[in-house]
C-alpha cells in the first residue's frame, strides 16, 4: 500500500515548488497542479483496491518514527479511502473547472492555496490524532479564507473576515477541548481513546468532549450558528464555493464521523437533533434566497446537517440497518457492499455524502458557467434553453440532488426512511421528507427559471386571456433576441464552448454511473433488470441526440421500441394489469405518432418520453415496494421534465413536481410504515393520498390544469389519457389496503366531488387546453368514484372508463393539438367555423364529445349506465345525484368546446388553414374505430373486464345476447345502435327528398341579423364567456379554495423562511452571538440531560 505520506508530501511539495514551476512557465505549473490532482485522486483508488481485493487491513502510518502528535499519524482504511476518492475527484474536477474557465483566471497563488486547502482536507480525513486534526483543520481553513478572497471583491473580504471570526472561535473551543481531553486521557490518539472505552467519564470529561464536538459542529455550520457559512458561499467564486461545499465540508464531516465513537450517547443525541434542525431550517432559508449561490449554500448546510444527524444516529440505526440488510427488503448486493464499505450506516453516509458532493459541486459550477446569480432566472439571451446540453446537465444534477432515481440519494433516502421508521423515529422521518420536499421545490424552481422561455412569467397555473394588443411588444422582444451581438450569452451553445461543461459533466456522469450501479445492486438477483429499461431508453436516446439523429427517426424508433416492449410485456399479463398495460403501452405508442409532425431537433424529448412509458410499464410487474417506488419516482421525474419543456410551463411544472414529490413521499412513508409492520389506517391514508395526488383529486388538483395544459400540445395527451391512470392503477393494486368501508366511502365522495369540480371548472375556461385538462380531472373523478364502489359493476366501470377515456380523450387531444397547430392559438373564442376547414378533426371531436358526455349510442353511455346502476345498487344516492349533475355540466363544456372551435364564424386568419397533418389524424382514426367498435359491440370490452374483476367480485351481472342485465336494469348497446341509426336515417331520407331542390348553401354572413349585416366574424362569433348565466348563478363555486389553501401552506413555509432569515443580520457579532448561544444551549441541554 502506498503510504499516505506521499499524498501529503506531493501536495505540500507541489504547493511549495509551485512558484518555481510558475517561473518556468504558467502552463507547466498548471500541468503540474493537474498531475498532482490526478495523483491524489488515483491514490485512494489504489488503496481501496488494496483494501478490498487484495485483502489488506487498514494501516496507521507514522512519520519519522515519532508518535503523534509530535509527528503525523495517518490511517488508511476503507472509510478514508472512499471519502478521499470522492473528495479528491471533486477537487480534480474543481481544478479542471477553474482551469478551463476564461475569466477570472486561475492564478498561481490560487493554485497554491488550492493545493494547501486540499492538503488540509486530505490530512483531516486521514489523521487519527486530535492535534494533527487541529493543524489540518487550520491549514484547510486558512487556505479557504484566502481562497475566498480570490474574487477580490469587498464582499469576499467581508465573508472571509466573518468566516475567520467564526473559525477562530471554533478553533479556540477545539483547542481547549483537545487539551482537556489530553489532560484526562493522556493521549491525543483517537484509536487509543476509543480503545479505552470512549471518552473520559464525568462531567468534566463530558464537557471536554462537548467542547471538541461543538467545535467540529460549528465548523459544520449548524443552525443558527451558520450565517458566516452562507455568506462565504454567496461571496466566493462558484469554483471556490463548490470546493467549500464538496471538499471542505465533506472533510470536516468526516472528522465528525471519526470522532462519533468518542462522543457518547448524550452528545450524539444533541448532535442528531442539531443536524435535523439544521436540515429543516436550512431548507426553509434556502427557499427564500435570491442569490443562487447562497441558496445552494444553505442547501449544502442542510445536507451536511442531515449527514450529521445520520452519523450521530449511527449507533441507533446500525442494528436497524443490519436488520434491514438481513431482511428481504434489501438486496444482497448492498448487504455485501455494506460489509465491504465498513459496515454500519457507513454505506448510507457514503451515498448521501457522495451524492451531495458531486451534485452540489456540479450545480455550483453550473451557476458559474451560466452566470446564474439570481434564482429568478437568467437573462433572456442566456437562457439554458439555448443549450440543451447545459440544460440537461443542470437537470440531471438537480434531480440527483433532489434524490430522484437512479441517483445515489434516492437509494439513500429509501434506506434512511425505512430505517428511521422501523426504529420509530417518525418525527425525524417527517422532518427529513418535508425538508427534502422543500429542497426539491427551490432547486427545481431555480432550474426552471434557468430553462424557461422569455415569454414565460413562471406563474402560469391557469389560463391567461391575452391582451388584444400585446403582440407588438412581443415582436420587439423577438427582434432584440435576434440581434447577433446579444446572441452569445453565458451558456455554451456549441463547439469548444462545451469544454467548460467538462467538470459538471463528469460529476453528472459519476452520479449517473453510481446510480446505475446501485440500481443493478438493488435489483440484482431478481429479473428486475427490466426495471432499468427506462434508464436504458434514456441513455439510448441521449446518445442518439448527441450524434444528432433526426427527430422523426427517433420518434419512429420510440414507437418501435414501445411496441416491442408491449409485445414482450403484455402477453404475460392478465386481468387488471393487462387492462392498464394496454392503456400504458399501446395507448402511448399510438399517441407518440403526432410527434412525427415536429420539425427541428428536440433533444431529450424522446428519451424522456420512452423512459416515462417504460417506467409506467414497470408499474405493471413490480414485486417489491422498492421496485414500485423506484418506478414511481422515475415516472415523476421524467414526466416533470416533459412538462417543463412547455413554452410557459415553468410555473406549472414546478407545481407538478412539488405535488408529485409530496405524494411520492407520502407513499414512501406509507410503504415504510407497512414494511415495519404497521398496516393500520395511517398507512392506507398516506398511500391513498399519494395516489390521489397523482390522479388530481379535488383539493390536490391544483397542479393538474397547468401541467396538463402548458405541456407541449402533442404531449398533453400523454398526461391526460395515460399518466392520469397511473394513480388509479395503483389504487387497484392496493385496493386491499383501502377496502375498509369508511375509506371507500371517503374515496367515493372525493371522486364524485372531483368529477363535479372538474366539469364545473372546465365550464368557464376560454383556453381549450385548460378545458380539456379540467375535463380529464373530472373523468378521473368518475373513475375514482367507480373504484370506490368496491363492487363488480363499479370496478368494471372504473376500468371501462379508463379504457374509453384513453380512446376519446386521446383522440380529442390529438385533434385539438392539430387545431392549435394550424390556428396558432389556444383561445377558443379566437377560433370558430373551423368545420369547413378541418372536417376530420371536427368529426373526431364530435365523436369524442358524444362518447365523453355519455350520450347513447356511443361508448360513454355504457359508463354512465354502469355507474348509476352500481351507485344505486350500493345505495349511494346522493353521490349519484351529484354525478348526474356533473355529467350535465360536462355536457355543457363539451358543447361549448365543439361549438366555439368548429362552428360559428370562421375567422379571416383561418380562412386558409388546412386539415391537421396526417400524423395528428392517426391517433384520431384509432380512437374513432375503437369507439365505434365498442359502441356497436359493448360485450367485446365488457366481458374481458368482467373477467378481469372476477377474482375480486362475484358476478352480479348477466348476459343475454348483447343485453347486459344488472340487478336493477338492462342495456343492449347493439339494439340501441340500430334503433338510433334507424331513427336517424329515416328523417334524413325525408329531408333529402323534400329539401332536395332549391336549397342554397349560403355564406357565413348570410344570417338574419335584425335586418342588418354582420361586419366582422370576431364580433359575430359568440364564444367568449359562453355560459355567463352559469357564472352569474353559481360563480361563487369558482372560488379557488384549494389553490388558496395550498398557497397558504406554501406561504407558511415562506413566512417561516423569511422570519428565520432575520437571524442572519449580516453582522459578524450577531453571528458570534449565535455561535455562543448555540454552544451554551447545547451545553445546558447536555448538562441538564446528564
Amino acid at each position: 500500500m502506498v503510504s499516505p505520506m506521499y499524498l501529503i508530501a506531493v501536495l505540500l511539495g507541489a504547493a511549495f515548488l509551485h512558484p518555481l514551476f510558475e517561473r518556468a512557465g504558467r502552463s507547466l505549473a498548471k500541468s503540474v497542479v493537474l498531475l498532482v490532482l490526478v495523483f491524489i485522486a488515483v491514490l485512494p483508488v489504489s488503496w481501496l483496491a488494496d483494501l478490498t481485493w487484495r485483502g489488506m487491513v487498514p494501516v496507521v502510518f507514522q512519520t519519522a518514527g515519532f508518535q503523534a502528535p509530535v509527528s503525523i499519524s495517518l490511517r488508511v482504511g476503507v472509510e478514508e479511502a472512499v471519502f478521499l476518492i470522492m473528495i479528491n475527484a471533486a477537487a480534480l474536477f474543481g481544478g479542471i473547472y477553474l482551469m478551463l474557465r476564461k475569466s477570472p483566471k486561475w492564478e498561481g497563488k490560487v493554485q497554491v492555496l488550492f493545493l494547501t486547502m486540499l492538503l488540509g482536507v486530505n490530512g483531516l480525513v486521514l489523521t487519527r490524532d486530535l492535534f494533527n486534526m487541529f493543524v489540518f483543520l487550520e491549514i484547510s481553513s486558512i487556505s479557504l479564507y484566502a481562497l475566498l478572497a480570490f474574487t477580490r471583491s469587498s464582499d469576499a473580504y467581508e465573508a472571509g473576515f466573518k468566516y475567520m471570526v467564526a473559525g477562530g472561535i471554533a478553533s479556540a473551543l477545539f483547542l481547549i477541548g483537545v487539551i482537556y481531553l489530553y489532560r484526562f486521557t493522556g493521549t491525543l490518539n483517537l484509536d487509543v481513546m476509543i480503545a479505552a472505552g470512549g471518552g473520559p467519564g464525568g462531567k468534566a470529561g463530558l464537557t471536554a468532549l462537548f467542547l471538541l464536538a461543538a467545535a467540529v459542529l460549528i465548523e459544520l455550520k449548524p443552525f443558527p450558528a451558520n450565517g458566516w457559512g452562507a455568506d462565504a458561499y454567496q461571496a466566493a467564486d462558484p469554483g471556490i464555493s463548490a470546493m467549500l461545499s464538496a471538499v471542505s465540508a465533506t472533510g470536516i464531516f468526516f472528522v465528525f464521523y471519526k470522532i462519533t465513537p468518542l462522543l457518547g450517547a448524550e452528545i450524539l443525541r444533541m448532535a442528531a437533533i442539531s443536524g435535523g434542525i439544521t436540515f429543516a431550517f436550512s431548507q426553509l432559508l434556502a427557499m427564500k434566497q435570491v442569490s443562487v449561490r447562497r441558496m445552494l449554500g444553505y442547501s449544502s448546510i442542510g445536507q451536511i446537517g442531515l449527514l450529521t444527524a445520520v452519523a450521530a444516529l449511527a449507533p441507533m440505526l446500525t442494528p436497524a440497518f443490519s436488520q434491514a440488510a438481513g431482511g428481504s427488503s434489501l438486496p444482497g448486493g448492498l448487504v455485501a457492499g455494506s460489509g465491504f464499505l465498513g459496515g454500519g450506516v457507513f454505506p448510507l453516509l457514503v451515498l448521501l455524502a457522495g451524492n451531495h458532493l458531486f451534485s452540489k459541486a456540479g450545480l455550483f459550477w453550473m451557476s458559474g458557467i451560466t452566470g446564474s446569480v439570481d434564482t429568478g432566472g437568467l437573462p433572456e439571451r442566456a437562457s439554458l434553453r439555448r443549450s440543451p446540453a447545459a440544460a440537461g446537465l443542470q437537470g440531471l444534477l438537480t434531480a440527483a440532488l433532489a434524490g430522484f432515481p437512479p441517483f445515489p440519494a434516492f437509494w439513500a433516502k429509501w434506506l434512511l426512511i425505512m430505517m428511521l421508521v422501523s426504529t420509530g423515529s417518525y418525527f425525524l422521518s417527517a422532518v427529513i421528507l418535508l425538508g427534502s420536499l422543500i429542497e426539491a421545490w427551490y432547486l427545481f424552481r431555480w432550474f426552471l427559471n434557468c430553462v424557461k422561455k422569455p415569454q414565460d412569467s413562471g406563474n402560469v397555473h391557469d389560463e391567461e386571456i391575452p391582451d388584444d394588443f400585446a403582440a407588438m411588444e412581443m415582436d420587439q422582444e423577438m427582434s432584440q433576441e435576434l440581434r447577433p451581438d446579444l446572441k452569445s450569452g453565458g451558456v455554451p451553445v456549441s463547439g469548444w464552448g462545451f469544454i467548460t461543461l467538462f467538470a459538471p459533466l463528469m460529476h453528472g456522469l459519476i452520479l449517473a454511473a453510481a446510480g446505475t450501479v446501485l440500481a443493478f445492486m438493488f435489483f440484482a438477483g431478481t429479473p428486475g433488470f427490466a426495471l432499468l429499461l427506462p434508464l436504458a431508453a434514456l441513455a439510448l436516446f441521449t446518445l442518439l441526440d448527441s450524434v444528432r439523429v433526426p427527430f422523426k427517426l427517433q420518434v419512429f424508433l420510440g414507437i418501435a421500441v414501445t411496441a416491442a416492449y408491449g409485445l414482450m410485456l403484455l402477453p404475460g399479463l392478465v386481468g387488471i394489469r393487462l387492462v392498464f398495460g394496454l392503456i400504458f403501452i399501446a395507448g402511448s405508442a399510438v399517441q407518440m405518432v403526432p410527434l412525427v409532425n415536429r420539425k427541428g431537433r428536440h433533444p431529450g424529448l424522446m428519451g424522456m418520453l420512452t423512459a416515462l412509458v417504460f417506467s409506467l410499464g414497470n408499474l405493471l410487474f413490480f414485486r417489491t415496494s422498492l421496485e414500485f417506488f423506484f418506478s414511481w419516482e422515475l415516472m415523476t421525474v421524467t414526466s416533470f421534465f416533459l412538462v417543463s419543456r412547455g413554452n410557459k410551463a415553468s410555473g406549472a411544472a414546478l407545481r407538478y413536481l412539488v405535488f408529485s414529490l409530496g405524494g411520492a413521499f407520502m407513499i414512501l412513508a406509507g410503504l415504510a410504515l407497512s414494511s415495519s409492520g404497521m398496516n393500520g389506517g395511517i398507512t392506507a391514508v398516506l398511500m391513498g393520498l399519494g395516489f390521489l395526488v397523482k390522479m388530481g383529486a379535488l383539493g390536490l388538483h391544483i397542479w393538474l390544469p397547468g401541467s396538463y395544459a402548458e405541456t407541449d400540445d402533442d404531449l398533453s395527451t400523454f398526461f391526460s389519457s395515460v399518466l392520469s391512470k397511473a394513480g388509479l392503477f395503483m389504487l387497484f393494486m392496493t385496493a386491499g389496503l383501502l377496502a375498509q368501508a369508511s375509506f371507500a366511502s371517503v374515496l367515493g365522495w372525493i371522486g364524485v366531488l372531483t368529477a363535479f369540480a372538474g366539469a364545473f371548472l372546465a365550464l368557464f375556461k376560454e383556453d381549450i387546453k385548460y378545458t380539456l385538462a379540467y375535463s380529464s380531472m373530472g373523468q378521473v373523478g368518475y373513475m375514482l368514484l367507480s373504484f370506490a364502489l368496491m363492487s363488480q359493476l363499479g370496478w368494471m366501470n372504473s376500468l371501462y372508463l379508463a379504457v374509453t377515456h384513453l380512446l376519446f380523450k386521446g383522440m380529442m387531444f390529438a385533434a385539438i393539438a392539430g387545431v392549435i397547430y394550424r390556428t396558432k392559438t389556444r383561445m377558443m373564442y379566437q377560433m370558430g367555423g373551423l368545420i369547413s376547414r378541418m372536417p376530420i378533426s371536427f368529426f373526431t371531436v364530435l365523436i369524442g364529445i358524444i362518447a365523453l358526455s355519455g350520450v347513447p349510442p356511443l361508448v360513454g353511455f355504457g359508463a354512465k349506465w354502469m355507474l348509476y346502476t352500481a351507485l344505486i345498487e350500493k345505495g349511494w344516492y346522493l353521490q349519484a345525484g351529484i354525478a348526474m349533475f356533473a355529467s350535465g355540466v360536462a355536457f355543457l363544456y363539451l358543447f361549448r368546446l365543439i361549438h366555439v372551435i368548429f362552428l360559428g364564424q370562421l375567422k379571416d386568419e383561418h380562412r386558409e388553414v388546412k386539415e391537421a397533418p396526417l400524423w395528428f389524424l392517426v391517433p384520431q382514426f384509432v380512437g374513432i374505430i375503437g369507439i365505434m367498435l365498442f359502441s356497436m359491440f359493448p360485450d367485446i370490452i365488457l366481458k374481458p373486464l368482467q373477467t378481469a374483476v372476477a377474482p375480486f367480485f362475484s358476478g352480479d351481472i348477466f348476459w343475454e345476447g348483447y343485453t347486459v342485465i344488472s340487478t336493477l336494469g338492462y342495456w343492449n348497446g347493439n339494439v340501441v345502435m340500430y334503433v338510433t341509426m334507424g331513427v336517424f336515417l329515416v328523417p334524413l331520407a325525408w329531408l333529402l327528398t323534400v329539401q332536395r331542390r332549391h336549397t342554397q348553401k349560403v355564406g357565413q354572413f348570410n344570417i338574419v341579423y335584425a335586418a342588418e349585416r354582420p361586419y366582422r366574424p370576431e364580433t359575430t362569433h359568440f364564444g367568449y364567456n359562453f355560459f355567463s348565466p352559469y357564472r352569474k348563478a353559481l360563480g361563487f363555486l369558482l372560488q379557488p379554495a384549494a389553490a388558496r389553501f395550498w398557497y397558504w401552506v406554501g406561504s407558511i413555509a415562506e413566512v417561516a423562511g423569511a422570519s428565520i432569515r432575520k437571524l442572519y443580520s449580516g453582522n459578524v457579532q450577531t453571528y458570534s452571538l449565535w455561535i455562543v448561544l448555540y454552544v451554551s444551549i447545547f451545553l445546558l441541554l447536555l448538562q441538564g440531560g446528564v
Partner: protein
Amino acid sequence: MSDMQDMEKTESEEQIARIAAEMRLANDGLSDQDKAYFCDARPQAVEPYRGIMEKFANWARSQSLWILGFGTGCGAIELRPLMTSRFDMYRYGIQPRPTPRQSSVFVIGGYASVKTVKRIVRSYEQMQGPKFVLGLGSCTVNGGMYWDSYNTINRIDYYIPVDVYITGCMPRPEALLAGFNRLKQMIREGRCEGMNTYAENFDWYKANQKQIIKDWNMPDYNW
C-alpha cells in the same frame, strides 16, 4: 399571335358564359374581403307544383301566414291590436314570427325611407319563398303625405313585389284583417307569385334599389 389572343379571348368569354350560367352575382358593393363572407348565388324562380298538389299547398300556405315582426314604419302600430283578444288574428292562422327565415308574410308598415328600404329588401330576400308582401297604408302606395320628401320612397312595388295594398292613413285593424283575407284568397287562387316575379325581374328590381341605395354594402342578393 392574334390567334393566341383570340383563344384567350374566347376562353375568357367562355368563362364569363360559364359564370353567367352558374348565375353568380357580381356583388360589386362588397370589398374583396367581404365577398368571401356572402353567398353569391342568384335567386331563381321556382316552378310551382302542378294541379291539385299546388292547390293543396296553396291552401296550407294561406292557412298558416306567419308575419315577419318588423315594423318598418308608423303603420306597424296597427298590427299590435291584431294580436289582442278583440281582433285575435290567430283565429285565421296568422301569427307573428321574429325571424324572416320562418315568416311568409312581410307587412310593410307604412312609409319607407331610403334607409328602411335597404332593410326591407334585405329582410325580404332572407324570407323563404313562397313569400307575400302586404303594403300597409297610403305611403306604400304613392308616398302618402310624404310624397315629396327627399327621403321617402313613393312606390314600394318598385323595390319588392307587393301582393296586396291596404290603403288608409292609418288603416284600421279591421281593414288589415280584410287585407289578410284578400291575401289568403289570392294565395289560394295561386296569384301570389311575388317570389317568382322578383326572381324573374331581379335585375330590374336590383337596378331600382341601387338607384336609391347609394352605399350598397351588402351582397346583391341577401340569402
